[in-house]
């Protein structure tokens, strides 16, 4: 197998591991907690691009689905994936893809990163809030109020940190690619 492909596989696994660690740093408010997982999902999209970023987020979901406690607060299992926060978890896959796709189209520039993380972060809610509404049978207004608005400031901070981290780490990744 080519070294390059193997490197992407290992980096995707690393990002999935970081997402799992991020889930342990959480603040439980209401049915949807604040977690650091989406920071690493955005970072996966920014660093690995659409294909491997999506693979990384998908891998995180798979590891959680088979019962390993990698979802927020040490939860795991298929039941949790299909619970009220399941939409947000599936939204992570979409988020990684969108962030990576936009970032790639803008050739990993700063402006592409900013647009990518904004749209990527909103994509999580695009799946998460309707899912939350469907499972909990709450009204649309309440679903948006509980499932999105309290997290926007935190998300903006996480998006900013993801961009800073991506810019700090990318030279390292580029150097590794050049060493081949």
């Amino acid at each position: 197998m080519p070294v390059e492909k193997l490197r992407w596989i290992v980096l995707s696994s690393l990002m999935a591991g970081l997402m799992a660690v991020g889930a342990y740093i959480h603040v439980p408010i209401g049915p949807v907690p604040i977690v650091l997982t989406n920071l690493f999902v955005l970072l996966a999209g920014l660093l690995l691009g659409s294909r491997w970023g999506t693979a990384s987020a998908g891998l995180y979901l798979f590891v959680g689905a088979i019962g390993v406690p990698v979802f927020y607060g040490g939860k795991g299992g298929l039941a949790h994936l299909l619970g009220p926060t399941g939409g947000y978890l599936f939204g992570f896959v979409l988020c990684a893809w969108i962030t990576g796709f936009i970032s790639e189209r803008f050739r990993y520039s700063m402006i592409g990163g900013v647009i990518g993380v904004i749209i990527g972060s909103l994509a999580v809610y695009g799946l998460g809030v309707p899912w939350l509404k469907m499972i909990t049978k709450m009204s649309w207004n309440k679903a948006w109020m509980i499932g999105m608005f309290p997290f926007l400031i935190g998300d903006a901070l996480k998006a900013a940190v993801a961009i800073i981290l991506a810019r700090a780490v990318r030279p390292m990744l580029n150097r590794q690619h050049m060493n081949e």
Partner: protein
Amino acid sequence: MARIALHYLPGDSPLHRWDARCKFFGLLMVTATLVQTSISWFIFDSILLFSLFFFSRLPLKNILRDLNSWMILLFVLFLFQVVLTPGDRFPSLSWLPISKDGLLLGSLTCWRLGLILGYAVLFTAVTRPRDLRDALIWILKPIPMLPERRIGLMVSLTLRFFSRILDHAEEVRLAHRARLGDRNKNPFRKAKFLALPILRRSILQAEEVTLALVSRGFREDIPLRLSKIPLPHLISLVIFFGILIGVWFLV
């Protein structure tokens, strides 16, 4: 001292010797019982967990010491649940912002999370990463169009990185403290000096893992020859399933 929780700990207990595929299905069964909110199930699962730890002859004291940070996390979660859940307050302690429902919900949530964590620690401690990878490949093999070998490798790497990142975080935190970094109260500055080194070290380790895989000639097209699950192991799994079904009817 190195952290040992969520790492494989070599041993010769029956649980170590049990086929990884059986262990995996056993873990799935136990996780399914933890979806319940019945206290009887929680008691059964707790007794089972402690019995399995006893039979696996793992250093429980050291593992519990490693889980201190999780205990703090569970306690914070418990406090949030207790304070934020609406309901009737205790008549004698009406000045405390604690509801009966919150206390019950918080206790059950923390109990369940503690059990999930305990089973995950036990599973990783008695299953070699290679066995887990092979078990996953074996399970995914019947599904068409799925790169089962790659998925198996990625899952085992993710679990490995998960525990290694926690190790890195602890090492960086201690190094930060040794340089009196903990006196700085600015959370953003603190995060910068903690997050970046952890990420850099993790990426360097990922590179080492890549080179190790390349040097060992990792290939996806080599067929995996796994032996059949030995009959005694399969019988143990069936007995375990039978016990769970029995408890289900009793509860």
